[in-house]
Every structure is written in structure tokens, then in C-alpha cells.
């Protein structure tokens, strides 16, 4: 066991509460060899971030390490005194935090943030620190002029690269990466990962990579540990896990990954009987435009979020609207649901030239026809009201059900979305349910009015991977059973192609490409779509990774 660079044995971490302590990490052990990329995968609440924080001993109370050891080159961090712990941090082991936005101090320049680390840990000041800082930035492909920039002047990807540069500042043998790409767009994410792989090749450090995204790790990790409820359920070489793994949970995780390559997985989702849709559209959006005026009397800055968008959706069709953050896709959702008013353009409903964009107050009838499912199930339900309240209000408002029928109908709706027995859920408050259960309630609320069209704004992106498929399945089934029309908004091309019949690709508020899902993914014509498809295809990173290994052999 001694040949591990980093070894963790029987680590247990508790959180002190007013009653019993909660065990977040339960007796886990693993070891990482020098030069390895070790992946730690787990869904939210599995304890993976707690492991990392405990390893560095940066977990603040009420966190308490109740047992275990963490050895780097045989030295135990957990038995080290307060001042000795500081010798481990950054010199032996450094960390790339989840959100670059929070990891960087907004009021300090990049230069100050890098030299801060150099001064604290290496006593490097003045011209030496300056040189080193420039070196570090060039390592991560950032121009050295950027030393004077403040974080808000950098893009998300650049910020993440600066954080990586800071982690590399004094070349620790081990770098922990805690979800380094989660907040980034797909294309940028791939760039960052490619950079990490390249740097590892060049500088030869060991990586502990923490993520919820098993898909990602399968492509470039050497070994994997899968965590669930504070325990490691499986730990194995990545090749073995790719074959399906031993544990049922591993298999469930692997099975829940939609893929953008190969043929569309037929039969997995409830398919409608025919994919020929009526030619008259249910909803038609024409020349829609939305500009946001910056606040202030004399401020003339305008931001065009949606620029001249037109598309049609037929009854029973599922259309995927794919775009990165800032592409205007959520603005379109708000425009179509009339949460905000368009600057210009019209929305026609039911082909009868009904201009719903004109009225200041949206007619109640429109609210019944067009419903929305929000991204964040933690935010879209009001924490002080029960499930019953959330489902009964729309029904009472639209006078669809009398008080006597209400309860039975709501129970039925809950069971339709997979919350059974419905009686058990009706009286629950949002905080008593898991994220997936909440999202089901939100879907049930949208469905309860029997709308004709549902706008689903990233309905799965805040959920754990293992339940995303189930949620997509509900949408597919609703379409099959009720001929429901769905506008499915997502940043994830793979899941859009999985659910949608047609995909619209959005960039900077304009449509760049539009077509049947299969055609668009197999043969994208637009350059941007090609990039997106590339980034969503598995094996993309693997190639880079393999290539870098090959070079190593050639070099050797």
C-alpha cells in the first residue's frame, strides 16, 4: 500500500447537528498512484466535496473528521498540527474550486491573486514573482497583459484557467479538481479539459478529479471511485467501469447517459405513433425581438437578448432549443410564456392569427394553453406551501375542477408523474422532497391544466444524472398519450436529440441552424453546430488523451 502517492484510509466525516451527528463520509479508503488521473464520481449529497475539504482540512466546523488518515508520501495530514497542515496545503496538494467566480476575489487583480500564493508559500516577491506569474499565465494560454485585469474582465473559461494557474503556482505533486468545469458551457468545458490533459502531460502532476458527470471521467480518468451516500460503492479501472461495472448503482449511472453519437436510441422513449405532424402550426413565432434597456435615465446601453427569431411548432411535436448560456434561450421561454413582453414581433397561437403579444394583460385563456416547467425545482415551488396548494391553485383559478373533484384529480396527476401513492405526497412541503420529486411536482402542476404546449426550460439540468432520464421519459410519455406539444430548452445537445424531433440551435440571440434532430447531429452544416456536436460526442477527449499518451511513448 505504500506505493501510493496519496492514500486515504477509513476516512469518516460527521456534521454536528442539534440532534445526532450526520455522517457525510462513511469509512472510505482509496489510494492514488503518482501520475494518475483518479476520478471521484457522485451525485449531489454523496459526500464527494466533503471528502476533498476534509483531505485539505479546510472543512469548517460543524464538520468534524471523526476517524481516518490521509497520507501524502506517507505523511499524515490528519495528525499534523495546525502549523504543519499549512506545509501540506499548496506545497503538496492544491485545489481548483468548483466555481471560478467564487474562487477569485473580485476586487483584486490577477497579478495580486497569483503573487499572494507565491508570497505565502514560496516567499517569492518582486521581479521573481512577476516572472513566475507571467510563466503561469502562459502555461494556461492567457496573455500576460491580463495580469492587470480583474476577474470580471475575463470570460468564464479564462477565469477557470486562472484558477488552474494559481493551483499550479508552486507545482504541487497533487492537484484536486472539484467540479472545475460544471459551471461552464460545453465547448469551453472541453477546451479546459484538453488544457488540463496537456498540462499534466507537460508537468506530470497527479489529479484527483471530482465530478457528478461520469460520462466525462470515462473519457480521460485512469481509475474511478463511485460514491453514494457517503460510501464508495465501487472503485476500479476505467476500462472495467466502461464495461458496465459491478455495482447496480454504477450500471444505473452509465445507463442514464444520453449520447450524441450513434443512432438515436429507439424504443427507450415512448414514441408517438407517427412523426408526421400537421402542417398548420400550433404556435408560430414571428420576428421576435427583445432588447433590455439598462436601468438609469441617461443610460443608453441596450442589450439585444433575442434578435429576430422566427419558428413554428406543430401540434404533438417536441422541438429542442439548444444554446449556451447567454444565447437567449431562457429569454425566449419567458417571451413565449409572456412573463416578459417582446420589444417587437408576434406570437400566433392555434393558427388563427391571434396576436397574443398585443394585450398588456395576458388573457387567462392563454395561460391555460401555454404552461412552463422551470429549471430549478428548488426555486419554482414556494417553500411555505404544500404540494396540494401548488396543484390546486391553477385548477381553482381556471375553474376546471369543483372542490369535490379537486382532491381525487390532484392525486391522479401526482401518480401520472410517478409520485405514488399520491396521498403521501399531497401534504408534503417542498423541503421534504428530493430534487427529482420536486421537479415531478412542478411538471404535474404544468400538466394539471391540460395545456396544449409546455415550455420546458432546462428541466433536467439541476437534477442528478441518474434521474434525468426518468424526467425526460415523463415528457415523452405525455406527448404520446396526450398529443402534447413541447418546446424543450437545453444546453445539452445530447439530451435534446434524445427527446426532440427537431432541433433549433441558438447563438447570441439568433438561430444558426434548424433541422430534424437526426440530420442536424449527423451532418451539421453550420460551424458552430459542428463545434457543439463535437463537444457532445464521446471519445473526443479520449482522442486527445490517448494522443498525449502516445506522444509520451514516442518521446520516451
Amino acid at each position, binding site marked *: 500500500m505504500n506505493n501510493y502517492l496519496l492514500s486515504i484510509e477509513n476516512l469518516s466525516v460527521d456534521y454536528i447537528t442539534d440532534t445526532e451527528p450526520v455522517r457525510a463520509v462513511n469509512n472510505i479508503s482509496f489510494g492514488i498512484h503518482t501520475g494518475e488521473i483518479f476520478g471521484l464520481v457522485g451525485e449531489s449529497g454523496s459526500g464527494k466535496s466533503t471528502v476533498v475539504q476534509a483531505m485539505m482540512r479546510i472543512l469548517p*466546523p460543524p464538520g468534524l473528521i471523526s476517524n481516518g488518515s490521509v497520507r501524502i508520501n506517507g505523511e499524515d495530514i490528519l495528525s499534523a498540527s*495546525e502549523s504543519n497542515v499549512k506545509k501540506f496545503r499548496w506545497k503538496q496538494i492544491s485545489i481548483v474550486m468548483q466555481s471560478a467566480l467564487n474562487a477569485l476575489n473580485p476586487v483584486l487583480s490577477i497579478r495580486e491573486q497569483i503573487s499572494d500564493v507565491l508570497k505565502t508559500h514560496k516567499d517569492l516577491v518582486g521581479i521573481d514573482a512577476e516572472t513566475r506569474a507571467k510563466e503561469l499565465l502562459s502555461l494556461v494560454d492567457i496573455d500576460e497583459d491580463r495580469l492587470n485585469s480583474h476577474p470580471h474582465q475575463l470570460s468564464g473559461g479564462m477565469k477557470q484557467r486562472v484558477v488552474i494557474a494559481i493551483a499550479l503556482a508552486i507545482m504541487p505533486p497533487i492537484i484536486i479538481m472539484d467540479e472545475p468545469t460544471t459551471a461552464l458551457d460545453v465547448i469551453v468545458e472541453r477546451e479546459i479539459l484538453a488544457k488540463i490533459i496537456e498540462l499534466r502531460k507537460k508537468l506530470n502532476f497527479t489529479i484527483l478529479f471530482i465530478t457528478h458527470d461520469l460520462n466525462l471521467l470515462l473519457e480521460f480518468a485512469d481509475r474511478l471511485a463511485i460514491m453514494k451516500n457517503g460510501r464508495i460503492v465501487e472503485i476500479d479501472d476505467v476500462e472495467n467501469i466502461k464495461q458496465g461495472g459491478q455495482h447496480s448503482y454504477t450500471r444505473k449511472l452509465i445507463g442514464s447517459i444520453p449520447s450524441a453519437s450513434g443512432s438515436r436510441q429507439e424504443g427507450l422513449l415512448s414514441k408517438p405513433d407517427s412523426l408526421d405532424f400537421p402542417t398548420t402550426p400550433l404556435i408560430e413565432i414571428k420576428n421576435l425581438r427583445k432588447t433590455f434597456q439598462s436601468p438609469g435615465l441617461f443610460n443608453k446601453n441596450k442589450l439585444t437578448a433575442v434578435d429576430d427569431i422566427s419558428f413554428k411548432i406543430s401540434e404533438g411535436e417536441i422541438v429542442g432549443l439548444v444554446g449556451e448560456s447567454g444565447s437567449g434561450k431562457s429569454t425566449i421561454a419567458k417571451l413565449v410564456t409572456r412573463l416578459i413582453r417582446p420589444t417587437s414581433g408576434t406570437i400566433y397561437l392555434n393558427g388563427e392569427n391571434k396576436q397574443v403579444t398585443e394585450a398588456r394583460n395576458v388573457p387567462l385563456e392563454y395561460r391555460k394553453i401555454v404552461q412552463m416547467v422551470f429549471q430549478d425545482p428548488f426555486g419554482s415551488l*414556494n417553500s411555505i406551501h404544500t404540494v396540494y396548494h401548488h396543484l390546486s391553485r391553477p385548477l381553482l383559478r381556471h375553474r376546471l375542477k369543483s372542490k369535490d373533484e379537486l382532491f381525487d384529480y390532484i392525486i391522479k396527476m401526482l401518480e401520472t408523474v410517478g409520485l405514488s401513492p399520491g396521498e403521501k405526497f399531497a401534504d408534503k412541503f417542498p423541503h421534504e422532497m428530493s430534487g427529482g420529486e420536486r421537479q415531478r411536482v412542478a411538471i404535474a402542476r404544468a400538466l394539471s391544466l391540460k395545456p396544449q404546449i409546455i415550455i420546458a426550460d432546462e428541466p433536467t439540468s439541476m437534477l442528478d444524472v441518474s434521474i434525468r432520464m426518468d424526467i425526460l421519459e415523463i415528457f415523452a410519455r405525455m406527448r404520446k398519450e396526450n398529443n402534447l406539444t413541447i418546446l424543450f430548452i437545453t444546453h445539452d445537445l445530447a439530451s435534446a436529440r434524445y427527446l426532440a424531433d427537431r432541433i433549433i440551435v441558438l447563438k447570441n440571440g439568433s438561430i444558426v441552424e434548424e433541422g430534424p434532430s437526426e440530420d442536424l447531429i449527423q451532418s451539421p452544416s453550420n460551424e458552430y453546430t459542428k463545434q457543439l456536436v463535437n463537444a457532445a460526442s464521446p471519445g473526443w477527449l479520449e482522442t486527445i488523451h490517448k494522443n498525449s499518451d502516445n506522444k509520451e511513448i514516442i518521446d520516451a
Partner: protein
Amino acid sequence: MNSRTQNSNIFRRWFDGILSNKKALIGTYIILFFIFIAIIGPFFIQSPTEFLGTPLTPPSTKNLFGTNGQGQDVFAQTISGARQTLFVGFTTGILVVIIGALIGGIAGFYGGRIDDILSLIINIFLVMPGLPLMVILASWLPPGPGTLLGVLVLTGWAWNARVIRSQMMTFRNRDFVSAAIVSGEKNIRIILVEIMPRMLSLLASSFIGASIYAIGAQVGLEFLGLGDISTVTWGTNLYWASNDLALLTESWWTFVPTGLSIALVSFSLTLINFGIDEVTNPRLISERLWREKIPRNLIKDGVTPVLKNNE
């Protein structure tokens, strides 16, 4: 079944929280004691304005708190003064919160032109110097509790409206509000049923803050002689004590009982405010909690404590 269980649930959570919080509990006991005295006290005491003979006699068994410069019973004055002082104080608190919630809530929820106009009004009231305005209004209008109430509400509502407006603006863009709009809910119902209960802690502490302010300002105005000096309140008690040169004659009993009562009421309200803070923001309690449960020698700055190391 729905609306009742929900309300009882929020209030029960609060109630349980307050009961289990030492600060809030002590504060509640003190304030309930004063409210109790204010309501039933005046029925059991002799008239506070009756002339009893020897002025400025120190406390004795006959006159528990002694007599004042007019030969009136200080004990009776302290107790009957509670009624009007607390009534004006709490009524001002309620009115300030209602007006603040109404104006601030509407401004924050609707935004745009409506917000511009209402914000302008709020800002005007905010920059008006409160104390001089209070003094001028109180001396110009006919004295009495109604005048005091009006003056206090007029000078006190704007700050609350401002706070509630900004809170409303953050709620306005939450998904659960958008979801309610999409389901066709009326705006007024969204404000009252969906958003306002979420602001309960803000409204409660606004009420308590406004009540403390109202009691203080009211006593101050009356002390300056700007109230109705023929009524018996804590403020007029102090006014008369000062007029009868209580400090020069060293008759401390004429002002200490009243002053102490005012201090105790403000203290208890502040305690309740702390309690509400802790009940609605569990983070404030959690530190005290883990410090009790983790062995002290393990707690060090910036390093996670380790209970047992398996060497």
C-alpha cells in the same frame, strides 16, 4: 384542508422556535407582563390624577412608589401610563408595517413607472428630517394620542417601505413567482399569499423595530411637552417629574419607575427581535451548538478538527 394546515404549519414552526429560544422567551414574558398590566392594571388602582396630600413623599407601604410633585400616586401613574404608551407604540408599529408593505410591496412587485413614482415619494419622506418635522407637527396639531399616532406613522413608514421594496424585488424574479404568474394567478394574490408569508421574519422585525422607535419618539415628544399633558402616559410622567424639579429635590422615585418600564419594554422587544433572527436564520445558532459538542482542544482556526486518527 389546505390553507389551514399551511398557515398553522408556518405559525407552529415559528411558535415552536420562539418557545425554544431563551432570548425570545424572556422578551415575550416581559412584554406580556407589561401588556397585561396595561390592560387590567387601571381597574385595580386608585386614580392616578387624584391629589393625595403631601407631595414628594418617598416610597412607603401607603404609596408603593411614593408621590410626585402634584401629590399624585406614582405607582398608579406608572401603571395607567402603560396603557396609552403601549397602545400608541404598537399601533404605530402595525400601521408602519402595513403602509410599508403596501407601498414598498407594490413598488417592488410592479416595477417600472409605478416603482418610479412610489420610490420618489418614499425618498422624499426619507430625506425629510424626522425629528424637527415631528416637533413642528406635534406642536401645531391639537395634542392627543391621535396626533401622536399620525405624526409617528408619517415620519416612520418610509424606511420600512424601502426595505420591503427591495425584498419584494428579489422575490419578484424568483421562479415560484413566475410559476404563479404562468398559472394565471392574480397579482394581488401572488403578493399576499405567495410572497408576503415568505417575508414574515422581515415584517415581524420591522414591526418590532417600528414599535421601539414609536415608544421612544412618543415619550420624547411628550417629555418636551408636545403631547397632551392632561393625560397620564409614561412620557407625561417624565415631563411632570422634570417640571417639578425631581433631580434638584432628589425625588428619584418620580421618574425611575417610568424610566425603568420604558427601558424594560424596549429591552424585551429587542430580545424578541434577536430571537426571531435566530429562529429564522439557523446559522446564528449553529456555531453555539457545535462549540458545545466538539471538544474544545480540537477547535483551531482554519483547520478541520480531527476526533480520532487511526495511526
